[in-house]
């Protein structure tokens, strides 16, 4: 008998099914991946197993856990099962941990609840668990509050709290989606290493994660189970067209189809730019230091790096949304100076930005038509209202939306549609440079593919230059001509797409590439390539900022900051770039 048996489970909200006739099982010690796009019912299924669905959900079918029926079980019974026998890890550990309790106390509570007799050695057990999940200095962190830890450390604590009672089943709902790739690799590896004989139900949208860690996978589409089986078999020959679609949409970092380098003239120059913020006291937080880049016309440059690397600060300073402390930006021969309000109208028209989250980037009180038309009102006030409408419709069609979307409010659009409206707004003036700040990060695989294809087509038609900020190197591989890698606000490497992935010149680039999970169970998984986390920008390490995490660091790295230099067409800031081959 399996550990968990779900039989024709259905979840309805006022008649609409979000999960429909779902049946699957998880055996003891097994790792099963549950994949699907947003809205496919993955999380609802997890909540149903835990008995955490909202009251208005109508539950049907059966969920048997180790022989016990969970559907319609009493709250008391579920409480006894949760945490003791079923652990859970959510996507956002900040939401799941109580901000007012020290983490040691939160973990103690779990143990006390389930093992009241063993309270003598309970603190030692908690510290031992924190130690096992790799919390440095667990003895001291026992007394820390959740906000004092980084995102990755919080997720480790979450994992500790889920596993401390030694449950039989662990449900992990997108446990690494909010984390940087390097930290994701650490957490996944940890998850595998310490779960012992605990069965794992891993809910994710990332097929790379499933390929690397799950023995079996289940594919959900709109609440229905459409495909399921051994991971290797399913990747080799998907049984259902939707699985095929998901697999095709997953970008591969080892993909062969990459854009050729562009040779256009330089259009936007970023010269030794520095950005800093006032921090507590007289200290300044240096978000960006001495970064230079020359963007060619018709070219896409990707900017990558972990969070805190200064990607967003760099482009916001170039656009005039943040003050630039040093260096300058030059657009088409003229300097870009001062805050955006004081810049020349032509410059504001030619440089446009697309934000990560379309929901917060679109005014909820305006319809798509006025959202897009607003910049036309500013820049072409002479346009008649018919001509303006025609332009709006034209650009809407360009992004693949029809006239029927003109009257929609943002909350009436799906994530992908909203992002298209945001792109349409940026494109309606015919800009020369488009800056995309994580513009596809929040989108589902298939929608992301469509948006990337759209950007590529527009670039081909209009010669648009794009700065593409991303943390997903697989996406970067598929869209960019050149890649700028940043770490702690500094340029680490700037190279052509092909050169960067084939022969990274900097150990950090190497590590970023290795951290990306490859959606193919046959390709052997890389060991988590980077230890530790990004240091604080307030107190960056001396010498090369990367040296504390670098496995190639030598004495000079700790004392002298490497100067960026050119090496066979690649710009790199590493003392050992010419003597060590990081490509392995």
């Amino acid at each position: 008998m399996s550990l968990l048996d779900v039989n024709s489970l259905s979840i309805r909200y006022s008649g609409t099914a979000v999960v429909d006739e779902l049946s699957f099982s998880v055996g003891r010690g097994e790792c099963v991946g549950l994949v699907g796009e947003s809205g496919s019912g993955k999380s609802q299924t997890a909540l149903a197993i835990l008995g955490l669905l909202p009251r208005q959900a109508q539950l049907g079918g059966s969920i048997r856990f180790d022989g016990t029926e969970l559907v319609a079980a009493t709250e008391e019974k579920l409480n006894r099962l949760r945490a003791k026998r079923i652990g859970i890890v959510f996507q956002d550990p900040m939401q799941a941990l109580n901000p007012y309790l020290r983490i040691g106390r939160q973990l103690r509570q779990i143990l006390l609840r389930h093992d009241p007799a063993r309270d003598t050695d309970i603190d030692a057990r908690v510290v031992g668990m924190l130690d096992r999940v790799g919390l440095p200095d667990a003895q001291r962190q026992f007394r820390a509050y959740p906000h004092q830890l980084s995102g990755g450390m919080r997720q480790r604590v979450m994992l500790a709290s889920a596993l401390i009672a030694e449950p039989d089943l662990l449900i992990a709902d997108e446990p690494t989606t909010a984390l940087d790739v390097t930290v994701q690799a650490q957490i996944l590896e940890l998850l595998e290493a310490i779960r012992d004989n605990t069965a794992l139900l891993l809910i994710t949208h990332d097929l790379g994660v499933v390929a690397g860690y799950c023995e079996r996978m289940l594919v959900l589409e709109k609440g229905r189970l459409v495909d399921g089986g051994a991971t290797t078999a399913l990747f080799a020959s998907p049984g259902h067209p939707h699985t095929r679609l998901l697999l095709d949409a997953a970008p591969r970092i080892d993909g062969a189809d990459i854009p050729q380098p562009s040779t256009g003239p330089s259009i936007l120059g970023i010269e030794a730019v520095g950005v800093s913020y006032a921090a507590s006291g007289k200290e300044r937080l240096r978000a960006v230091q001495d970064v230079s880049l020359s963007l060619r016309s018709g070219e896409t440059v990707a900017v990558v790096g972990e969070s805190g690397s200064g990607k967003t600060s760099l482009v916001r300073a170039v656009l005039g949304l943040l003050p630039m402390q040093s260096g300058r930006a030059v657009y088409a021969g003229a300097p870009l100076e001062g805050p955006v309000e004081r810049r020349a109208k032509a410059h504001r028209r030619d440089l446009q930005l697309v934000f990560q989250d379309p929901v917060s980037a679109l005014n909820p009180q305006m319809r798509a038509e006025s959202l897009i038309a607003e910049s036309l009102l500013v820049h072409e006030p002479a346009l008649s209202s018919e001509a303006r409408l025609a332009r709006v419709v034209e650009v809407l069609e360009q992004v693949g939306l029809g006239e029927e979307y003109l009257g929609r409010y943002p909350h009436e659009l799906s994530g992908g549609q909203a992002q298209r409206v945001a792109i349409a707004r940026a494109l309606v003036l015919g800009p020369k440079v488009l800056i995309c700040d994580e513009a596809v990060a929040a989108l589902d695989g298939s929608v992301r593919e469509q948006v990337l294809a759209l950007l590529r087509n527009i670039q081909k038609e209009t010669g648009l230059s794009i700065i593409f900020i991303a943390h997903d190197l697989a996406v970067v591989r598929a869209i960019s001509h050149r890649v700028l890698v940043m770490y702690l606000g500094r340029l680490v490497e700037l190279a052509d797409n092909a050169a960067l992935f084939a022969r990274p010149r900097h150990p950090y680039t190497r590590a970023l590439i290795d951290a990306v999970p490859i959606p193919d169970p046959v390709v052997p998984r890389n060991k988590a390539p980077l230890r530790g986390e990004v240091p604080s920008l307030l107190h960056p390490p001396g010498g090369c900022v990367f040296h504390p995490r670098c496995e190639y660091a030598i004495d000079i790295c700790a004392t002298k900051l490497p100067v960026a230099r050119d090496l066979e067409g690649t710009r790199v800031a590493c003392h050992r770039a010419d003597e060590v081959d990081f490509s392995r």
Partner: protein
Amino acid sequence: MSVLRYRAISVSGGILLTIAVFALVGPWISPHDYVTTDFDRQLVAPTMAGAQIFGTDDLGRDLFVRAMLGIRVTLLVAIVASLVSLFIGVAYGAVAGFVGGRVDAVMMRFVDTLYALPFIFFVILLMVAFERNFLLIFIAIGAVNWLDMARIVRGQTLSLREREFIDAARLTGVSTRRIIWRHIAPNLIGVVVVYVTLTIPQAILVESFLSFLGLGVQEPQTSLGALVDAGVNQMEGASWTLLIPAGLLALILMCFNFVGDGLRDFFDARHVS
């Protein structure tokens, strides 16, 4: 989605509307008026005879007509006072929040200072110093209520200013005035509307309180507060003179509170605010 789908709004709103209509046409269809005294019919209990359904007061004036008149005055004071606080508060709060920095600090410290003034003394002084009239009551209540509104609007504006659609508008070159008008203001409506429906009952209470102290509207004009005050004196023996205006006052306050709560639900559901 319609506002009327929220039962709290439709029921309470319906009651308020009915009361308002009665207050407007009631005195007009009644054979009595609010000033004529009739010493043959003092303190008559509610009766159908002579259409005096609320009875009469100690001077023999028809209580129904006087109650309707009181409602008119009470609603008028409350609504005008709320509008005064709405305009001052929204303009003040939006400017402080959007401009930010030192301007914001100075403007909000001024608000803090005003908060420190003892409001009731302030109003009583005004009433004593100047001739008592309607206008003064409006100004007094409005001048105090706008402080809360300004704080709420400023807080909301501060968080809106950080939203990315404001950056998007700045990038394309939308003017500051247009940003406030087109991007900030419409997103404040939810909060402001809810807050106004909650300040109206506050203003009603303040007005009633002033009238109860004898500082409000003057005879022969009246308000619900003044009627309650008069009713208290006749409480023994003629309880209707107290119960009817007090009941109407409570009903109106309750309805406004329900409408406010309902509107809050409505705007929350649309993810506005």
